[in-house]
């Protein structure tokens, strides 16, 4: 009769070997265990999002729209200002009030406004503020993912974590320089703005304070490479949200620069403004740094422009990616960062593998010396257990971390525990004079509750650790849990089956050989 336990155990063993082969050989076919960032090297970051800045910039863009719409409708108004999150402007003509009210109501959503003796004050609604903040996080996740994808990195993870954090994981970074480059790409705001130079007051920029500039609805920004400062109109002519494409190009001196294209609306605004402002300067501003401020010679149609700034080729390439994937509505900042170089990861794999092999050999040899053939049977179960852990992890595409490796090593030590308990019970019964078949059956029966209860408690600890742990620690909890479950199958059911099917071969006179005891 075929022993069902042996059948199940054989299936488990075959399953374990077959599904762990792709991971062990690192072949392309089949599901594999992914190595954690601590083993293969890579970058793990937890980012915060400065959502308040998204709100501020949203207010700015609302102001820009109001300014443009009012200009287009030929409304005459005094300087448009943003003061403490409130947009303010004053009409000069009482007759315009009704017209402006209807324009604002029609063109712009998500705002509330008050009008008091020709002075308009406009605020975002609380719902609009919340929506802007939420949107900023979602948009940041998308944008960062987009940038990393365009950079050509293999399998980066970008995900929202909790309410307001972003998790970024980038495996397989080769050098520290690359890592910094990637971080710069992630963190770059990439806010492109076209801003008019305040030609009337720019000559005084060196002596002007930020507060004074603010009074004129201006802002002082410095040049990206030189210490030169510019006095610019606070509300931009247009921003990068109207950008459709950005590519690296070259100027006459073969210096890299970035060519960008605007969408229809952007092209129109750009054209209109340049037409009106011939002879004045317009600054190309990226992330609050002035890259150039050329004098407008004629109306610029077609919605094309360029950013030049003595770029390095690599820098131009990265900026173009950032511009194409869009600006971050809100800047991101580091809450937590962990980066491991590939050589350290390789060292960790080597060290933990050596520990695993040595620990495994020590246990295997000890079991054979102490228990004889019973030890060999336990060792077979142990090997099956190892394969099963690898197979299950491969099938789920689980991540193996350094603590995870430690978990496997520890499982080797603890998985034989079941067999130690069982073997001790069998020996006890044989000493008492039971027949071998009786000793084996009762041994398994007596040992079962103890093994079960002990494993469940360890499992409880492991599950809690998995639920509350982060990153590498989760990996440890996972390998321990799988190891425990697999050991129930291999160490209890598997070895029991093996005993049953070789029972007739066990020689009562050779107990030393079979169970390591002398009666």
């Amino acid at each position, binding site marked *: 009769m075929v022993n069902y336990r042996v059948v199940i155990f054989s299936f488990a063993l075959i399953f374990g070997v077959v599904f762990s082969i792709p991971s062990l050989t690192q072949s392309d076919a089949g599901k594999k265990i992914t190595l954690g960032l601590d083993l293969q090297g890579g970058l793990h970051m937890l980012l915060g999002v400065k959502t308040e800045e998204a709100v501020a910039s949203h207010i700015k863009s609302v102001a820009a729209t109001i300014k443009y719409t009012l200009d287009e409708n030929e409304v005459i108004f005094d300087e448009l200002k943003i003061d403490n999150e409130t947009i303010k402007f004053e009409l000069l003509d009482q007759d315009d009030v009704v017209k402006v009210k209807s324009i604002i109501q029609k063109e712009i959503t998500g705002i509330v406004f008050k009008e008091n003796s020709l002075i308009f004050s406009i605020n975002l609604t609380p719902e609009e503020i919340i929506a802007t903040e939420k949107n900023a996080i979602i948009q940041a996740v998308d944008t960062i993912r987009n940038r990393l994808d365009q950079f050509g990195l293999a399998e980066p993870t970008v995900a929202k974590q909790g309410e307001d954090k972003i998790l970024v994981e980038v495996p397989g970074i080769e050098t*520290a320089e690359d890592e*910094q480059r990637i*971080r*710069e790409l*992630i*963190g770059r705001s990439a806010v492109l703005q076209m801003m008019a130079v305040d030609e009337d007051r720019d000559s005084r920029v060196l002596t002007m304070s930020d507060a004074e500039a603010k009074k004129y609805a201006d802002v002082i920004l410095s040049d990206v490479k030189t210490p030169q400062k510019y006095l610019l109109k606070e509300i931009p002519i247009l921003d990068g949200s109207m950008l459709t494409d950005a590519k690296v190009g070259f100027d006459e001196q073969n210096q890299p620069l970035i060519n960008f294209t605007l969408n229809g609306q952007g092209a129109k605004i750009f054209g209109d403004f340049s037409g009106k402002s011939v002879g004045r300067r317009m600054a190309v501003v990226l992330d609050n740094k002035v890259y150039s401020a050329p004098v407008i010679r004629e109306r610029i149609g077609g919605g094309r422009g360029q950013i030049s700034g003595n770029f390095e080729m690599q820098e131009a390439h990265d900026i173009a990616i950032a511009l194409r994937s869009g600006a971050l509505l809100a800047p*991101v900042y*580091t*809450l*937590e*960062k*962990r980066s491991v*170089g590939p*050589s*350290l990861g390789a060292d*960790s794999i080597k*060290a*933990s593998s*050596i*520990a695993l092999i*040595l*620990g*495994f050999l*020590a*246990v295997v040899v*000890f*079991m054979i010396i*102490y*228990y004889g053939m019973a030890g060999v049977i336990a060792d077979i179960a142990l090997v099956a257990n190892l394969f099963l852990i690898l197979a299950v992890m491969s099938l789920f595409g689980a991540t193996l971390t*350094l*603590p995870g490796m*430690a978990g496997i090593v*520890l499982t*080797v*030590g*603890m998985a*034989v*525990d079941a067999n*130690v*308990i069982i073997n*001790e019970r069998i020996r006890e019964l044989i000493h008492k004079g039971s027949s071998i078949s009786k000793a084996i059956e009762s041994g398994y029966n*007596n040992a079962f509750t*103890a093994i079960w*209860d*002990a494993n*469940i*408690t*360890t499992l*409880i*600890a*492991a599950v*809690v650790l998995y*639920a509350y*742990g*982060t990153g*590498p*620690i989760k990996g*440890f909890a996972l390998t321990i849990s799988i190891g425990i479950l697999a050991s129930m199958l291999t160490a209890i059911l598997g070895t029991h089956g093996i005993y049953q099917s070789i029972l007739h071969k066990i020689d009562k006179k050779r107990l030393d050989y079979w169970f390591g*005891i*002398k009666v």
Partner: protein
Amino acid sequence: MEIFKYKKPLGFMENSKKFGIMSIVLVVLSLGLLLTKGFNYGIDFAGGTLIQVQYKDIAPINEVRDTLNKNQDFKGAVVTFFGSDKEIVIKIKTVSSAVGDDIGDKVKTLLSSTGDFEVRRVDMVGPKVGGELKEKGLMAMLLAIIGILMYISVRFEWRFAVASVVALMHDISIAIGAIVLFQVEVNLDILAAMLTILGYSLNDTIIVFDRIREGIATIKSPKLSEVIDESVSKTLSRTTLTSLTTFFVVLTLYLFGGEIISGFSFTLLVGVIIGTYSSIFVASPILMWLKFSISDYRAKEAATLKREKEKEKMRAQFEQGTI
């Protein structure tokens, strides 16, 4: 091979007072250490920056220290060798929130004159994240203990649950004492090691308790101390052997697993030894001190058995009656 062979049960309970005193002394010493010296929190919980640098040749550690201390931002940086004399670890209390150009990059530029090196690891944990991790860690510990307590109460009896948790606290306290004494850096992996000790120590205790539970039913003696002596003696070989195999692997992990997990394996090493000791010498005497009574337990078991039998009888009668 057989090491544990004895005709008579060993007298564990006779000596339980001695071991009890020893345990209390150890626990008090450990807690005293914790209160006076305190944990050496690593960056996971305290926040800060850790930079691991490997030089081509021997690391110029003094030069690195001087260079860093001259810079206002890195005053108070702690520089130590890590695993070998080519590798150093720099610890700084501050973090930077800039994504692009962070502390790690600054240190790299600053050290560029000190030789040929490779930055192998940069860990930076902001204070907010550190606080959250600490909170989560404590929560995990607490939940695990509650879960296990509930399970044992259901499977055994409340006194067993209390005894096992006391043994557990004993083990964790002494492990903590060792961590504080040797100033092992407490990071997330130490928390994982603690939870493993928790599981392991219980594992051991339960095997012994299972034997006592069995002994109560099979051993004739009504004296708990005798039942315990015999049960502990019978499981002694298993307890020692399993501890030995686990000890082997944890020792290889400690010796060969690399510097990064040495704190983790050290904690486990202590835990395995203490866990074994406590399941033999600490957990069972507590059962005695909690005035666990064999006759009460047997009476209760008998009553449960009787009730079940009556239920079955009634069900049988009921079924027969209806058929």
